[in-house]
Structure formats: structure tokens, C-alpha cells
């Protein structure tokens, strides 16, 4: 059974149909690419899945449950985390605090418990150990005390991914994880993604423009154009698909 | 409610509504073009009123000159506050709350400078004393030349401003800026210059509103601040984006404050002291129930954008 299924998902902005009856599937443990020219509705589709935009019609099934209509925080609690195209780190917080924020059901997050450390200190220390593990994996443990604003662009991307992991997601939605990153580092980011899939069994749905890197890592690719799904297949299929080449590369 | 009171309150509605419109259009324009809910707007009004009062005390009694001076002083105050405060802050890319806070600070500074001046010359609560002539009188209703100045001048200025926005090159550029600042910059609109003109217009209109206000009632350093919430209510009724909506909103607020308040007082014994609560109720009701204001009712006519 697929981890994520979309049935006839639709999103209208005023008179504009940004996502037009899209149905797709993401298999458990897969890395799936989502490509298409600018304005084809990819980011909107991610927003719909993540609950940060409200769908006009259609259904979203995740892990056997219908999650259409849930709010972004509820969707996260179900196990879908997302990365953003623009850096979305908390720049005035340390690397460690960035990583700790998304941890689910923290007792110290409740204002009545928060002032009394003994209620949450033990849990906080455990979370910190988990966070240190994740930070080590993305090679940022040495920077645990730096403000996020002091990290390099690539480190920010890695921290953002590490932060998403702290919510122990089953599915990670990434919106151009390599945007604005040097080519060699972009490759590293995808290697990291691949490692995460192997070690933690996380499933990925990735919007990416750097097809040459993406195609090296994905199990399958969906192509969107003007809000519609244009094609679906393996990286090789898509690379040789005439229609895709036409809308994508204009040749 | 006696009909003579009704007529008087309707006259007040027209007069005060026209002044509100003049002020609220400036607020709407600042919010659309500059993207700032400017709480210092009130003080441009007061500055204009004091300028008018001072020259009238100095012996200048020609209403046209008084209005022109008020325009200049209001415009100067606005442009200076833009150049010294808002422009540098915008450059620093500060948050909207910082800008709002700065506008409060600017208002506070201008208001208390005016307090100091008023105190120094002992000119509190005086009316701009152009000679009164009675134009029309029936029963208890007396229309003087003040009425002939206040409402028509406001209405003419409102019409002129609307024409400027809709028919001129500057107006087109302002509308472009209101729609999308970045895009406006990209297509080569001289953003800074348009902003300067916007501040000039907004401040000038506020200054004139102050002078006209001072013709019909006493000038005090708190007069603008006392009206700002009513003016915000009018602008919010217009969705902070539409000129016709703002103008309609101004008259709705004035009508509620005058006619409806008087009616409530007569029929249900509601104390007139609650009058200042009316614009507050309007603002909260509109923001919670119909944040787009009256714009939809007006079929988006004359929309500035956003």
C-alpha cells in the first residue's frame, strides 16, 4: 500500500486553477521527484499535502488515513514534515534550539509546566541527545551553539533537513532542497537524503529543478504542467519523454 | 426625535463626513502606496489646523490663503516625517510593527511640539476666526458661510484627488505601486519620487482637513488624535484600499456618530458620552465580520489595488 495517495486534488485561486485534479501515489520508502516548469503548481501541491493551503476539492490519504482538511500542525503530527524553498530557519536561535523545536509532545511546551523545570528537564535532555545525533549526522554538532544566522547556505539547508527529522516524519516533502547551493554541495544533500531513506526508512517527495542530480537518486518522477499531471515514470522514461521535453525545455 | 434636530444632525453628518473623507483618503493612500497604517496621520491634521489658526490670528482672514498655508504645513510635516523617519526605517527592512510603532512615536512628537507651541502662545481651543455670515436660516437650523466652506471644499478636494489617482500619470504610478511595489520598480516606475509625492499629497490633504476643522470648531493639540479612530474606521470600512469605499465609510461613520447617536440618545436614553465608542465598534465589527469593508458592495470601482 502506498504511503501517500492523492485523489483528484484541486486548488483554485480565484479564477485560476493552480492544481487541476491531480492524482498520484508515493510508495513507502521511495524517493519521488516532482518536476515541472515554474508556475506548474508543484509548490501549491506540496502546500496542499502539508495542510498549509486549503484544497478546493479532492482527497489526500496518508498512511491509510484521510488527512484532507487537517491543519498544518495536525498534518505534521501525523508524520508529514516539509522543507521550504526559502530558508526557513529560526535565525535568532541556536542550531540546537532549531533542531529541538519540532520535537513532538514536549511537556515543557505547556505554559503551566514550563516554569517548573523538574517536569520537563529529563525529557529535554533526552530530546537533546536525539538532536545531537541528528546534528552529528548532518555534520553540524560542532555548531550546536551557533546562531542559525551564522551558518553557511549549505549548512542551513542541512539543518533544515535535520530539523524536519526531529519530528520523526514518515514522509518528507522538500521544495528545491538544493536551491542556491553550490553543485558539489547539492550532490551531498541528495546523498544525505538517500542515506536518510536507508537508515530511517523515510519517504521523500521532492520538488527540484536540478534534474541532473535529481534523476540520479529518484525511484520515480511526476511531471506537472499548468496544474495537471503530464507524465509519470522512471527517471529514464521521463528524460526521454518527448512531451515532457517540449514543455520543460521548450524544444 | 424632533425633526429640527434631525436636520441639524444631518448637516453635521455632511460636514464632518466630508472632513473624515478628506482625512481617511489620505490614510487609505498611505496604506496602499506606502504600505503603512500611519497613526501619525492625525498630527498632520493638527499641524495644518495650528498653521491655519496662527496665520488667522496674525490677521490673514482669506479662507483660500488659510487653506493653502494649511496644505503646505501639513505636506511639509508629512514629507519631513517620511524623509527622517519612515524612509530610513524602510531601508532597514524593519517589520510592520516597527513601522507602526515609529508612526506612534512621530505622532507623539508632533503632538507635544504643538502642545508646547500652543502653551507658549497660549492658543488652546481657539477657532479660526474668519468673519461669520449667515447664509440661510430656518427654524433652529442656521447655515453660515462656514458650512459653505467646509463641506464643499472637502468634496471638491476629494473629487480632485480621485481624478488625480484615476486620470493622471502620477495617479497611474501610485496605483501601480499600490498593486505591487516590486513589480512597479521593475517596470521602471520612479518609486521614491512617487512615494514623496504621495506623502506630500497625503499630508497636504490632512492639513487642509485640519484648517477646515478649525473653521467649524476649536483647534487643540489633541484634535487630530481625537479624530484618528473615526478616520481609521472610515478607511477600514473602505477596506483600506478603495477610494469610493473610504468616502462612503467616512459618511457612514459621521452619520453613526451624529444622527444615529442622537437617535439612540432620544429613543433609548444612551448617554452622548458614549459617542466616541461608535467608531471603535465599527472598526471591531468590520475587522471581525467583513474585513474587506464595503468594497465588494461598490463592485471594486476605483480600487487602488492590493
Amino acid at each position, binding site marked *: 500500500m502506498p504511503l501517500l495517495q492523492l485523489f483528484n486534488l484541486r486548488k483554485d485561486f480565484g479564477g485560476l486553477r493552480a492544481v487541476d485534479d491531480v492524482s498520484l501515489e508515493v510508495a513507502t520508502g521511495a524517493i519521488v521527484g516532482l518536476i515541472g516548469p515554474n508556475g506548474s503548481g508543484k509548490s501549491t501541491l506540496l502546500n496542499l499535502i502539508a495542510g498549509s493551503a486549503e484544497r478546493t476539492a479532492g482527497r489526500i490519504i496518508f498512511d491509510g488515513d484521510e488527512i484532507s482538511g487537517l491543519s498544518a*500542525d495536525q498534518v505534521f503530527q501525523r508524520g508529514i514534515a516539509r522543507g521550504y524553498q526559502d530558508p526557513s530557519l529560526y535565525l535568532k536561535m541556536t542550531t540546537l*534550539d532549531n533542531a529541538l523545536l519540532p520535537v513532538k509532545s514536549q511537556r515543557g511546551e505547556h505554559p503551566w509546566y514550563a516554569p517548573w523545570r523538574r517536569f520537563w528537564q529529563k525529557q529535554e535532555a533526552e530530546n537533546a541527545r536525539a538532536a*545531537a545525533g541528528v546534528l552529528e549526522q548532518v555534520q553540524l554538532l560542532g555548531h550546536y551553539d551557533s546562531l542559525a544566522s551564522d551558518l553557511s547556505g549549505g549548512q542551513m539547508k542541512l539543518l533544515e533537513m535535520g530539523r524536519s527529522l526531529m519530528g520523526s516524519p514518515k514522509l518528507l516533502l522538500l521544495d528545491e532542497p538544493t536551491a542556491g547551493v553550490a553543485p558539489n554541495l547539492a550532490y551531498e544533500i541528495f546523498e544525505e537524503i538517500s542515506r536518510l531513506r536507508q537508515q530511517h526508512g523515510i519517504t521523500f517527495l521532492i520538488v527540484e529543478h536540478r534534474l541532473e542530480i535529481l534523476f540520479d537518486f529518484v525511484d520515480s518522477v511526476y511531471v506537472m504542467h499548468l496544474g495537471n499531471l503530464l507524465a509519470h515514470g522512471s527517471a529514464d522514461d521521463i528524460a526521454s519523454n518527448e512531451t515532457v521535453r517540449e514543455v520543460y525545455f521548450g524544444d | 426625535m424632533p425633526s429640527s434636530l434631525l436636520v441639524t444632525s444631518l448637516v453635521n453628518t455632511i460636514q464632518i463626513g466630508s472632513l473624515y473623507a478628506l482625512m481617511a483618503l489620505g490614510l487609505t493612500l498611505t496604506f496602499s502606496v506606502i504600505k503603512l497604517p500611519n497613526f501619525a496621520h492625525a498630527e498632520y491634521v493638527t499641524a495644518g489646523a495650528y498653521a491655519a489658526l496662527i496665520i488667522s490670528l496674525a490677521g490673514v482672514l482669506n479662507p483660500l490663503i488659510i487653506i493653502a498655508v494649511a496644505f503646505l504645513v501639513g505636506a511639509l510635516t508629512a514629507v519631513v516625517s517620511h524623509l527622517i523617519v519612515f524612509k530610513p526605517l524602510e531601508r532597514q527592512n524593519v517589520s510592520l510593527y516597527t513601522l507602526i510603532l515609529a508612526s506612534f512615536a512621530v505622532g507623539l512628537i508632533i503632538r507635544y511640539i504643538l502642545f508646547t507651541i500652543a502653551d507658549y502662545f497660549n492658543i488652546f481651543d481657539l477657532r479660526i476666526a474668519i468673519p461669520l455670515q449667515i447664509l440661510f436660516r430656518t427654524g433652529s437650523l442656521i447655515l453660515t458661510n462656514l458650512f459653505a466652506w467646509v463641506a464643499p471644499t472637502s468634496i471638491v478636494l476629494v473629487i480632485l484627488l480621485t481624478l488625480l489617482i484615476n486620470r493622471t500619470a502620477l495617479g497611474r504610478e501610485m496605483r501601480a505601486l499600490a498593486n505591487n511595489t516590486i513589480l512597479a520598480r521593475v517596470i521602471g516606475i520612479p518609486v521614491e519620487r512617487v512615494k514623496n509625492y504621495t506623502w506630500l499629497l497625503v499630508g497636504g490633504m490632512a492639513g487642509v482637513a485640519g484648517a477646515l476643522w478649525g473653521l467649524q470648531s476649536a483647534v487643540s493639540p489633541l484634535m487630530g488624535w481625537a479624530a484618528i479612530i473615526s478616520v481609521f474606521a472610515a478607511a477600514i470600512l473602505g477596506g483600506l484600499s478603495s477610494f469610493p469605499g473610504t468616502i462612503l465609510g467616512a459618511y457612514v461613520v459621521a452619520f453613526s456618530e451624529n444622527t444615529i447617536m442622537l437617535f439612540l440618545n432620544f429613543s433609548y436614553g444612551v448617554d452622548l458620552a458614549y459617542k466616541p465608542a461608535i467608531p471603535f465598534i465599527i472598526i471591531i465589527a468590520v475587522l471581525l465580520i467583513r474585513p474587506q469593508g464595503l468594497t465588494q458592495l461598490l463592485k471594486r470601482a476605483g480600487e487602488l489595488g492590493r
Partner: protein
Amino acid sequence: MINIDLGATAISVLTLFGIYALMSISLNLEYGVAGVPNFGQALFVSIGAYVAGVTYTRLLPLLAGMESVHPCGPTMGQALQLRSEIMATQPVAGFINLALTLVIAAILSGAVGFAVSYVTLRLKEEWFLALVLLVGGETVRIVVRGADDLICSHNGISSVAQPFYFLDDVQMSSILFMLLALALALIAYLYSQRLTHSPYGRMLKGLRENEEVTRGLGKGISLARAQIMLIGSAIAAIGGVLFALNTGFVNTNDYVVTLTLDVWVMVVLGGIGNNRGALLGAALIAIMDRVTQVAAIALNMSGSPIEFNYVRFIAFGIILLLMLRYRPAGLLPESRLTTIAHETAKRLTPGKTI
């Protein structure tokens, strides 16, 4: 020349500092930590004052075992005499009344803060919340002033004595009141310090930095925001009770937008998001208040035509603008979050690279 009694000045400045600190800590939690633009601080402070106005006229006589007299209208003088007498002769009734006043004020104000923040979630634009709070404060003020009975409309309630009024030694009595204000401020400070340096504080800062992302990371932020408004509003109302006791009056004219701006100046000056900064801001404003008061009197006596009380507001406006422009983080910039997590991570970090 005027004589300045240094002892009395120190006491009054420290008392004012304690009261201002409650207000600035409250705003710092709301805006500095959580990013909620509370432009209605005067509202929450005023709730405390109005509650005091009601309890000192209605509840106090009951606690003292006497019949209460209507505080407004023809019996105004009689009611004033009654409460002064009780405060002078029955300290226990005074203390119980104060304790109940603080509790009622905190609960009422907290409930209002909670409710307002929930209602305004539907607002289209973020800054509408600022407008609603500002406008709400003014509305409540007008309604309270319009109501003839509550705190006697524009007359207000005078002779709201502080709880140590019964002491014969006036200086001792004001010292004790000062200590009370400082103690409450200290408790509020320690509480907000712990609140800030906790996972809850982390979530609030996340909410401040980026609402959408924080929601996307699984945090139900509307509740978090309402909760911090509840806490902040309760603290502000406690400040309001003390403010009224300190001046001895409850009058709607004291709770206007300029009071809100004063509190903003404290937070912006001290350091947005830093509780210590809030204390520093409160201290500086308390001192400046006193200095301008003295200067105003001195100028007045020397026959100067300049009214110095106006200069105070101009100066505050200029300070605010200078800070926003040249030192937006305040005198004491925000400190990093410290929880046990940082020690844990430090132990796990081999040969720290920074």
C-alpha cells in the same frame, strides 16, 4: 530652589520601577518573546486599576464588617471617609482586600487577553490585532468613563490607599509598599525568565520568527498565542492595581494610549525579547519620569514659559525613534535560550569547534 528629599525620591523611584517592571515584563513576554503586538497595554493595566476601584469601594467595607456606602453621587465624601478609615484602622481587611483585588484583576485581565487573541485569529492581516487591541483599550475606557456607577465616571475614585497606610510612620509605610511592588516585580521577572528559557519559550520565539513554519512543525500556535496573552495580561493587571494604589486614584484619564507607548519605550529601550532588558527599560523610564517631574517643577518655579511635561513626551518619542533606527535590539539584546539541552549537547560534542 526646590529641596529634593533623596530618601523619599529613591523610594518613589523604586516603587515606580517595580510597577513599570510588571508592565514591561508583560509586554516583553507578549511582543518581545512571542511577537504579539499588544498596542493595548493600557487596556490590561486599566483593568487592574478599575478592579481596584471597585473592590476598594464595595468589597473593602464588607471585609471590614461595615455597610458599604455608594461611592459616587451625594454619598461620595462619606464613602471616601469610610475607606480611608478602614485602611487606617483595619490592616487585615486592607491586606485581604488587596490580595483579592490582585487575584480578581489577574483573572479578569487574563481572560480578556485570552479571549481577544482568540477572536482576532480570524483577522485578515496581522496588524489588525494591534489595531483591535488599541481600539479595544479606548473603547473600554470610554464605556467605563460613561458608566455613572462603576468608578464614578469622570470623577474616578480617589483615596485608594496602599495597604500599609495604617502605619503612623509615613516613610516606613511607603518603604513597605515599595518592597511589595519590588517583590511582585521580582516574582514576575523570575517567572517570565523561566517561561522564556523553556521549550514553551522556544515555541513562542519560533512563533515570533516565522508563524507559518512553526505551524508546519506541528505547533498549534493559536493556543500558544492566547496563553501568552493570558499570562501577559494578568501580569499587566497586577501592575495596574499597584499603579492605582501608588497614585491613590483610579481615573480613566490615566489609561490612554500614551501609557501603552511608555511601556513600549521601556521594552524597546531595554531590549526586545530580553527580560533583563525589560527591567532595565522600566528602571530608566522610572528615573526619567522622576527627573522630568522635578525638572518641570523647577522650570515652572523659575518662571520659564516652557511646560516640561510636554518635553517628556517629545523626548520619549525621540528615544523610541532613535532606538528603532540605530539600536533595534535594545540596550541589552536578546540572550540565547538556555535549557538543560545545551549542557547535554555540550557533553556530547567532542572537541567543540567554536
